[in-house]
């Protein structure tokens, strides 16, 4: 019973206590790059960066032989909590400035740089049963709409966009993240949803994305920073440089991100 009553809380608390313990010994810092031995870099990144950062990590590894890049993808808020609780991360890439702020406020990162922007699209099933063309169509009485919950970045962006357009939507569900929201569209359980462009592109054509002008009012900035207590500080800076480089921008734009 205990194990199911609060799975998320329990998992986080357990993870946090372990990570605190693991991160509290300063003597375990990984060797910096250039020392010749095998080095490892740990990157905490928002779930929506899974595809792009995995690709960038692969390129980073081939450019720095002997270096292993490990990713922890998850909700930006959860990752930020883990970092402030002492998780041994080198780089943090967040899906919102607010989550990055909790890390900079704790003094664990400084001068984050915005490396990508994500905008919303209306996602509809391939056959578009409710004939959705614009944001206003989502307000139709028979239209079933899924949004992200306001607590997660894509939900906050959806509220902003709908407010900007003056459209009042009664969603049937407020999902826990963009991927779950998209699943409801893919299975045809809802007629439309507001998710990120990148999610629509990553779904590989199973879902149609419709641009709408009000999306410009709700652009989501993705900041990245090397952490001040990074065990592999040099590698962390080099990885951030790669993400901000022309090569990094190419990978991100291919996936549907806008770059500053």
């Amino acid at each position, binding site marked *: *019973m205990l194990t199911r009553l609060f*799975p998320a809380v329990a998992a986080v608390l357990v993870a946090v206590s372990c990570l605190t313990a693991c991160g509290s010994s300063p003597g375990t810092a990984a060797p910096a790059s250039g020392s010749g031995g095998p080095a490892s870099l740990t990157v905490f990144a928002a779930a929506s960066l899974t595809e792009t950062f995995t690709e960038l990590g692969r390129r980073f590894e081939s450019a720095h032989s002997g270096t292993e890049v490990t990713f922890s993808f998850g909700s930006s808020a959860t990752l930020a909590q883990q970092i402030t609780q002492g998780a041994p991360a080198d780089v943090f890439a967040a899906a919102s400035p607010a989550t990055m702020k909790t890390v900079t406020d704790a003094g664990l990162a400084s001068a984050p740089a915005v490396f990508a922007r994500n905008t919303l699209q209306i996602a509809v099933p391939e056959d578009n049963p409710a004939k959705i063309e614009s944001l206003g169509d989502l307000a139709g009485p028979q239209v079933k709409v899924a949004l992200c*919950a306001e607590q997660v970045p894509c939900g906050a962006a959806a509220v902003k966009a709908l407010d900007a357009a003056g459209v009042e939507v009664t969603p*049937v569900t407020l999902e*826990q993240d963009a991927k779950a929201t998209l699943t409801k569209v893919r*299975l045809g359980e809802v007629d439309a949803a507001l998710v990120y462009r990148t999610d629509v592109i990553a779904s590989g054509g199973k879902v149609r994305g419709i641009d709408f002008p009000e999306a410009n009012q709700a652009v989501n900035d993705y900041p990245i920073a090397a952490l001040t207590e990074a065990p592999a500080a040099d590698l962390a800076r080099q990885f951030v440089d790669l993400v901000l480089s022309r090569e990094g921008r190419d990978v991100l734009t291919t996936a549907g991100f806008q770059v500053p």
Partner: protein
Amino acid sequence: MPWPLLVPALAGLAFLVLPLAGLLARAPWQSLPQRLAEPRVLEALRLSLVTATIATAVCLLLGVPLAWLLARTTLPGRRVLRALVTVPLVLPPVVGGVALLLVLGRRGLAGQWLYDAFGVSLPFTTAGVVLAEAFVAMPFLVIAVEGALRAADQRYEEAAATLGASRWTVFHRVTLPMVAPGVLAGAVLCWARALGEFGATITFAGNFPGRTQTMPLAVYLALETDPDAAIVLSLVLLAVSVIVLAGLRDRWTGTA
């Protein structure tokens, strides 16, 4: 008490209880009263209690006969059936939710027909929450009741049958009273599991306050922005379930 039992028993107890101590230690006690008074908390709690109770009723209605079928008949392929009953235990609940969508969703195998014929669509409704909870919780009831049925002395049933009782009369006058404690234990487990259900519920029924947002869903989303609120919600859920379960044990099974 022999120490080879005592030591692991205490370790086991500590393992189960220490995370709870962690929650209690980190709980924001000062802001607790005002957090509890938020209408959203009460709404989610009410929904959780109502859906878990209805789901348990559904499980009793379907699960007890199913347990009887597994324990008392010589159906061919009973072993396979028993294995199939435990599928929801093994399946990650999120996958269970997707499976329910594929069958009962608006475009699902059976849901399509429901929707076309009656205009009924189960996802995103409170009924959907009950279904998701019942799906995940039913094996706990079936396994408990089947165990009780196997342990019960069948000679009483045989005696009733030789005295002319029909199979149905034997079932509800002899078998059911004999296995009542097992049924209750199963129902309690089933209720507790339904109360904590997260994955299948959020996948199949979605998350909407007042309609499908149960406590575990509220906890998960609170964790995104306000970990303190998540801890408070978890404590409420824990406290309510412990009170209900402890109360049940005292009153009806006398095994406190």
